[in-house]
């Protein structure tokens, strides 16, 4: 494939890549919760440092990680601007005609932007260092207690893994069809939004027809091999917790505890300001 998609698996040989995907998944969930508990700038910086350190250990170029942020840059800008103008507070900084900007607004805007970027960065690290198959295996394993209340965990995991598997196939197919139509003189790049949308019809119709054909063939092939979602299945790669997973868990828990301590007990920003006074 020609383009490296954002968040796509980035193969390097690193400890992070070899970690148990279940631990990674749990760490991500905890991380997302943690980001909402960030209070002080010092902690924001600490979490950024944390993410960058992991990126470094995972041997992923920072450029690749930053590319994932580019996709949400608009969202970040818009939410920040809205917060900047519509947050009211006590300390008025700018007043011009109907526009009023408060100190709280500025702070809100900055923190929200940082929060959104952090929310994008860490989960991207997960998909960059974990293959989709590992992810679904991890999900299946983590959700297995739900089997007790008759939730078809295996079927859900299967649907997910097929869906994930289909993404690159469909992308390749889209690419192929676009090339074929380009060879027939199609022009996807010029014209207004309407013209561009119309130009996509010759791509989308064959794509959908192909997707249904593939789904049909896959179902038939699985049937032919007596696939059953209730049969006991073995795995090619068995997930096992090792020392590095334990170390990673401890480090994550330590970092995240710090955030909660900061939220409820210690104010780092004030401490540092007090030091300088």
């Amino acid at each position, binding site marked *: *494939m*020609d*383009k*490296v998609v954002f968040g796509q698996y*980035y*193969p*390097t040989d690193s400890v992070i890549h070899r970690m148990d995907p279940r631990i990674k998944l749990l760490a991500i969930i905890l991380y997302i919760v943690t980001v909402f508990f960030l209070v002080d700038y010092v902690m924001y910086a600490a979490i950024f440092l944390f993410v960058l350190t992991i990126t470094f250990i995972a041997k992923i170029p920072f450029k690749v990680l930053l590319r994932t942020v580019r996709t949400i840059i608009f969202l970040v800008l818009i939410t920040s601007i809205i917060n900047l103008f519509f947050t009211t507070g006590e300390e008025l900084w700018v007043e011009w005609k109907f526009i009023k900007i408060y100190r709280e607004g500025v702070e809100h805007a900055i923190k929200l932007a940082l929060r959104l970027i952090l929310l994008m960065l860490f989960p991207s690290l997960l998909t960059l260092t974990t293959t989709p198959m590992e992810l679904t295996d991890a999900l299946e394993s983590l959700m297995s207690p739900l089997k007790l209340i008759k939730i078809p965990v295996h079927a859900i995991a299967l649907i997910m893994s097929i869906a994930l598997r289909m993404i690159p196939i469909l992308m390749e197919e889209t690419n*192929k*069809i676009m*090339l*074929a*139509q*380009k*060879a*027939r*003189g*199609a*022009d996807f790049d010029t014209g207004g939004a309407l013209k561009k949308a119309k130009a996509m*019809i*010759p*791509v989308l*119709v*064959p794509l959908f*027809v*192909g997707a249904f054909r593939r789904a049909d063939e896959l179902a038939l092939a699985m049937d032919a091999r007596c696939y059953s979602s209730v049969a006991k299945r073995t795995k090619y790669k068995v997930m096992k917790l090792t020392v590095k997973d334990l170390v990673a868990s401890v480090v994550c828990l330590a970092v995240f505890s710090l955030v909660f301590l900061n939220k409820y007990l210690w104010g780092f920003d004030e401490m540092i300001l007090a030091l300088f006074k």
Partner: protein
Amino acid sequence: MSIEVKDLSYVYSPGTPYAATALDHVDLTVSEGDFVGIIGKTGSGKSTFIQHLNALIRLQSGSIKVYDIDLTEKKPDLKRLRGTVGMVMQYPEYQLFDETVEKDVSYGPKNLGLSEEEIKGRVREAINLVGLDYEDVRDRSPFELSGGQKRRVAIAGVIAMRPRILILDEPTAGLDPRGKKEILALVKRLKETSSPTVIIISHDMDAVAENCDKVALFSGGKIEKVGAPREIFYDDELLLRAEMDVPTVVKIVKEMEKKGVTLGEKPVTRSEFLASVKRWRNG
């Protein structure tokens, strides 16, 4: 000279761990009237190469000239290029999209910006050329046709652009022996009537030997050798290195040699083979 490729190299996803060299300093010249066969293992760069000829892939290094269109220019005339070089991709029937056969075939000519009348004439001609009955299929949905018919419609969609060079990527893939024969006969007919220069990629060595007068063997992103079919298919050392199969005729000749029968000639097509056997028997 219809196509002139010089020192063409191409790397997929350069600068990432996925980087892969697909073409490595490739040179090839194709003259008008040539029937060129491109052979090579999967992943040897064949498809990447032909996609360059239609500017479906942007030039990274080297140069390509198609008639007077120079692809090293910043903005080559793509419309004219795509009207000159017709490309039939692998499994072209999967690219059909419109409600009727007529509309689908007219997609290409429409993109060229031709007049309504001109388009109509070309579409009728193209559909008849590929061996379908225009009146019969024009209003039918391409999706209700049979596999072989669909492929014909897809080829008609390219022919309707009246390309002087026709490129087909594995035109016989997935067809039964009869369908293969029909498509090859069609390609031959198209070469005689509408597109004087034809380039095909094929894994079917018999088809290449029977039809092509020039063969380019790709291996590992390089062209190992260009020559007449007999120069390629009797070069044992080359074929072994490139892990290529040979046409049935060549296999038979080799078997005969093992049994002590030496023809003294190098036939590659069936008729050549029969002629040399006759000569051998008589003299």
